């Protein structure tokens, strides 16, 4: 650390050298009396040192929230590409925080995640971020055929966007797919390749499908302390990436059965499952969404889809709410209007 940068008196700088303090972070983590003991400096010198170190650590003065409306990108969202769902999510995925999407297998989580990988590529006026996405698979291989189908059908899904614009976007070139089979390779991916992609501006969405797989398979039941420690470090990395690059992070999670149905202290759950990985993970998530399959099939033209429900479990800016959705050839769409108003359309024919 170059202490000269802080404009301190030579006396303080030489005392810091003698005390073997090398970084501003070390100084901040010591209390005034401790600093006085290790450096032998006077109280006023210590005050001067602490103020200089603290000023070097902070990135900006407190700013009125009003100014953040224009200057900051905190209001940016990645839309779903369906007006009903964008309305439900008040614009889409927020930047700078972790969003979790959980549900049983077959609920449509990967479908929705892939859709975000395409919608992020639109310019901001169409609720995109004008950049690509990185998709980290830890469970299955990436459903590349389905992605190509979604790309072909984009003009059908996005009737709000001019056709020329849709055709000018090179969708499949901008989805970077990574596979991580264990925690070590996931760590490598998140600490090396992903920051590089983000720093180069090639991507502005990070999808992890799924978080649960690695943490559930690599630790035994009695390893939970070690698991929680790893989980904390991992979620800090994700959070740091999302803040550093003002990027949305979408984590897909599995669900577990709630075996103690009497214990509802974590929230009122309408279904007998809850997201995996427990409280240690939940505390790090800003927005929690859940998808589940309903026992109905809806039909539209020659297509049919199992009805699903997307629910907001919590988010600081959203009320607890939900929306029935269907997965069509062109992607995931909300079924608007009163729920099941079109009951007469419902056929129980399988997909």
């Amino acid at each position: 650390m170059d202490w000269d940068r802080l404009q301190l008196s030579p006396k303080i700088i030489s005392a810091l050298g003698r005390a073997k303090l090398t970084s501003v972070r070390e100084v901040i983590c010591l209390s005034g009396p401790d600093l006085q003991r290790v450096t032998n400096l006077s109280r006023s010198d210590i005050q001067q040192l602490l103020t200089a170190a603290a000023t070097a650590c902070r990135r900006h003065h407190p700013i009125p929230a009003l100014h953040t409306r224009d200057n900051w990108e905190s209001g940016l969202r990645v839309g779903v590409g369906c007006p009903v769902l964008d309305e439900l999510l008040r614009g889409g995925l927020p930047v700078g925080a972790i969003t979790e999407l959980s549900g049983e297998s077959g609920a449509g989580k990967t479908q929705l995640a892939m859709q975000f990988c395409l919608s992020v590529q639109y310019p901001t006026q169409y609720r995109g971020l004008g950049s690509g996405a990185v998709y980290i698979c830890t469970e299955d291989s990436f459903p590349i055929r389905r992605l190509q189908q979604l790309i072909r059908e984009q003009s059908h899904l996005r009737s709000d966007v001019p056709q020329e614009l849709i055709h000018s976007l090179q969708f499949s070139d901008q989805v970077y797919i990574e596979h991580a089979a264990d925690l070590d390779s996931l760590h490598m991916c998140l600490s090396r390749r992903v920051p590089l992609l983000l720093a180069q501006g090639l991507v502005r969405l990070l999808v992890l499908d799924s978080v649960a797989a690695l943490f559930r398979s690599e630790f035994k039941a009695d390893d939970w302390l070690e698991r929680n420690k790893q989980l904390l470090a991992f979620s800090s990395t994700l959070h740091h990436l999302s803040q550093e690059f003002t990027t949305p992070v979408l984590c897909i999670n599995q669900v577990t059965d709630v075996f103690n149905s009497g214990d509802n202290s974590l929230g009122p759950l309408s279904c007998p499952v809850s997201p995996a990985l427990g409280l240690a993970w939940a505390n790090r998530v800003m927005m929690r969404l859940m998808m589940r399959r309903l026992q109905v099939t809806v039909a539209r033209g020659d297509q049919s889809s199992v009805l699903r429900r997307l629910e907001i479990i919590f988010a600081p800016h959203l009320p607890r709410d939900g929306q029935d959705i269907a997965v069509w050839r062109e992607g995931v769409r909300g079924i608007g209007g009163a729920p099941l108003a079109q009951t007469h359309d419902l056929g129980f024919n399988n997909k």
Partner: protein
Amino acid sequence: MMQRPMCSLPLSPAVKVKLVSAGFQFTADLIHLNPDQLSGEAGLSREEAEDVLQAAGTGGPLSASVSALELLQKEEETRSIVTFCSLLDSVLGGGLPVGRTAEICGVPGVGKTQLCLQLAVDVQVPACFGGVGGQVIYIDTEGSFLLQRVVDVATAAVRHCSLLVEDDDQRAAMMTFTVEIILSNIFLVRSRDYVELLAELHLLPDFLSDHPGVRLLVIDSVAFPFRQIDNLSQRTRLLHSLAQQLAAMANTHNVAVVTTNHMTTRLRGGLSQLVPALGESWGHASSLRLLLQWSGSQRLATILKSPGHVETSVPYQINSDGFRDADQSEQPPSKRARTLPDQSAASQSDACC
């Protein structure tokens, strides 16, 4: 206090050795000395001598003691920040006291951030409406300060107050109680880790002196950055000095300090239970501890620790306007109508496609 041994003062060892070898054993020995005399007698530099006298508390007039009656009067003068949930306000004795520290604990999604945002708006309610009319410093460590939501809460608070206008004073006050002005009175800081948070807190006293109108400091949350520290003894030490800093700031600058904390699972006798995170000793850090929790589909606020109140629980809800009293009707809060007319219209048109 005057018989405090010299070696217990927060001074560098070299200075203490000089003082003791010059015959100064207790702080009482320093009375009536000025810095020049002390530096001559003990062989200290003038600067060191000033430090010694300041540390011993003999440099200037001693801080005057305050009688209990004066304290009571002061406490009656201090205003409280209303929460907009009348049941919670009444068990808190009018709201959240200014000049004290408070902690809000709860599981994710129960409404900790919602209460913080609500308080950040409520502290600005003008005095003629029974408010505090103050400004806010909001330290966001989780990234959960979303302007969209603050605008919702502020809009509802402005609407609420405009319906209460009765006299000219209040009409005039409403001119300066608009959503724009509310947003400009919230000073936002985003800290990405505990070092940035500690650095900010170190600089905050100067900011508070420059902005005497600040009546509320929010840190949402303390748990998020501090739980990343692996070394438990370092964490405890840093949290301890954080608690001292916050208490001092609350008192000297007359601000309410509100922090939030996560919950964690603890196994006790084979039973797992939810307890606030950051350990036992952090529990003593704030003078008021509020636990937000679920009971079925009902949200409950429980006062866990408070000097003036017994442990009580009151129901509340989070609706589109913010933190409010629970609905008295039979309707469960989670089913509250959010379907605005335009939204259902939009949904219907989409159903046709």
